[in-house]
């Protein structure tokens, strides 16, 4: 106790006129925000404006472009490429549904049934990220190769007959068909579904399951009435994180598809980087952005989860 008898070093009292430093901090948030927000304004928001202006320009690479409010570009672009638009939405929607169906059991398994294997499974879900996704997408070329074991098995089971009839595959091939593209999209974006699902499932108190069981709910009822509704935030953010990037993707359609499975991303990419028709490409990109924003806004409103924003 002797320490307490030693007088503490005196604290230097500040002059009372001095403004408290807390008041000086009024500008702090703006200084913190400035660099990052400036970056986003210049390299995210401003490009959107440039793109909008490019889409109504006319001219050529040699003579330069001028804003002529040439809205006809939109009409031409959409009327020429609407099949790709539709295909993008259809493929992305199928992939999203598949991701949900495949991802939910795995997320549930990690959250409630994995026990001491939980961390290991988590690592196995995330680790593939570290192999470039292009390499992994190329691996599907081997897996789905013509005459390979997967195609052989599907053939023997007559699954391919059904999918061919539906127009998902053609003949004995899976590669270069819509099925291959959707399969690749599903594979690529599956972790983006699993992680948010897991996050919201993991928050659910396990005792709720017991309580529901105690109150005469069958396991299937427990799932329908308790687990699934409580995991809705994960379902919503998972579907968004899958659907949005899948719609704009052109990698899977390029590597696993054919000319007949082109998505809107493929068109934008080739217009920009090969055809060099900037107004058309900008118009298509602008329409895609507007369509996605409209769909996402509608979906978020509908599902009543706005925590994401």
């Amino acid at each position: 106790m002797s320490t307490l008898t030693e007088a503490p070093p005196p604290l230097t009292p500040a002059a009372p006129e001095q403004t408290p430093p807390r008041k000086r901090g009024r500008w702090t948030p703006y200084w913190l925000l400035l660099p990052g927000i400036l970056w986003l304004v210049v390299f995210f928001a401003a490009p959107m404006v440039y793109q909008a202006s490019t889409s109504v320009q006319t001219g050529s690479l040699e003579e330069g472009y001028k804003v002529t409010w040439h809205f006809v570009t939109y009409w031409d672009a959409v009327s020429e490429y609407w099949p790709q638009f539709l295909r993008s939405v259809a493929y992305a929607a199928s992939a999203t549904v598949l991701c949900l169906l495949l991802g939910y059991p795995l997320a549930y398994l990690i959250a409630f049934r994995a026990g001491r294997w939980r961390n290991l499974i988590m690592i196995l879900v995330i680790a593939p990220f570290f192999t470039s996704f292009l390499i992994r997408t190329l691996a599907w070329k081997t897996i789905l190769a013509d005459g390979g074991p997967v195609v052989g098995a599907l053939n023997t089971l007559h699954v391919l007959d059904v999918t061919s009839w539906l127009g998902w595959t053609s003949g004995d091939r899976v590669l270069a068909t819509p099925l291959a593209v959707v399969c690749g999209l599903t594979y690529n974006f599956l972790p983006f579904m699993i992680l948010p699902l897991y996050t919201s499932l993991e928050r659910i108190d396990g005792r709720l399951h017991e309580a529901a069981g105690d109150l005469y709910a069958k396991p299937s009822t427990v799932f329908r009435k308790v687990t699934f509704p409580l995991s809705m935030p994960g379902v919503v953010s998972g579907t968004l994180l899958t659907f949005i990037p899948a719609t704009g993707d052109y990698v899977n359609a390029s590597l696993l598809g054919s000319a007949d499975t082109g998505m809107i991303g493929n068109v934008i990419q080739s217009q920009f980087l090969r055809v060099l028709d900037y107004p058309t490409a900008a118009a298509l990109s602008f329409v895609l952005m507007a369509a996605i924003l409209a769909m996402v806004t509608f979906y978020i409103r509908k599902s009543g989860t706005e925590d994401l924003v």
Partner: protein
Amino acid sequence: MVFVTSFKNWFKRNLVVIAGLLTLAYLLLPNVVVTVFSFNKPNGRFNYEWQQFSTDAWKDPCGVAGLCGSLSLSLQIALWATLGATALGTAIAFALVRYRFRARGAINSLIFLPMAMPEVVMAASLLTLFLNMGAQLGFWTILIAHIMFCLSFVVTAVKARVMSMDPRLEQAAQDLYAGPFQTFLRVTLPIAAPGIAAGALLAFALSFDDFIITNFNAGSTVTFPMFVWGSAQRGTPVQINVIGTAMFVIAVLFVLASMVIGNRRNRRKA
């Protein structure tokens, strides 16, 4: 009969486990293929069909022109993009959680939108900007683009951590004679560190593996994903699989090691 019923029951009870493991298999199958085919010796330019076992590619991973150069470029870009995005994103996250200011809603949307935008849209619009400015496409345009799209993810990760932090900890530091800067350095930063690290790791992974935005804004510069993309057209060297496998193994070992160390430290302290 009894056996069949009990099997049925077992199956019913473990349905979700079986389905989950099948999904896991679907997720891991390509990695298995990548690994197996890193020991292939293909006939011709493409490495899609199994021919014969060989460790040639493992002995000479840089044996393909441009491969290791693109890898090192990707690592450099990822490193700088991580630094930039983490610094800018952490500052924004702190401002959002800790301060009141005008235009909060607009700023939140500006941060959310890049995550809700298909990459191809961001890539295309950024390219129109660079073209309009007459910028030279290459290392710098890639870096600018990567910092831009990683920023929002860093903000989200750091924000979550800072929000869950007890404000009384900082008050306690102030009460114990730490000025604003000392409080930040000694208390706020160490406690927010896991969130910042998570954001940085995410930024690194996103930048390193980015293809679409890079594809638009790289000009003739070739990052590793760009190299793989090009090789899908020209011919896929086995070395690509070697690099892919090595990255997977290193990542898993890294995570396992950090878990083991963490466990041991906890056990020693308890």
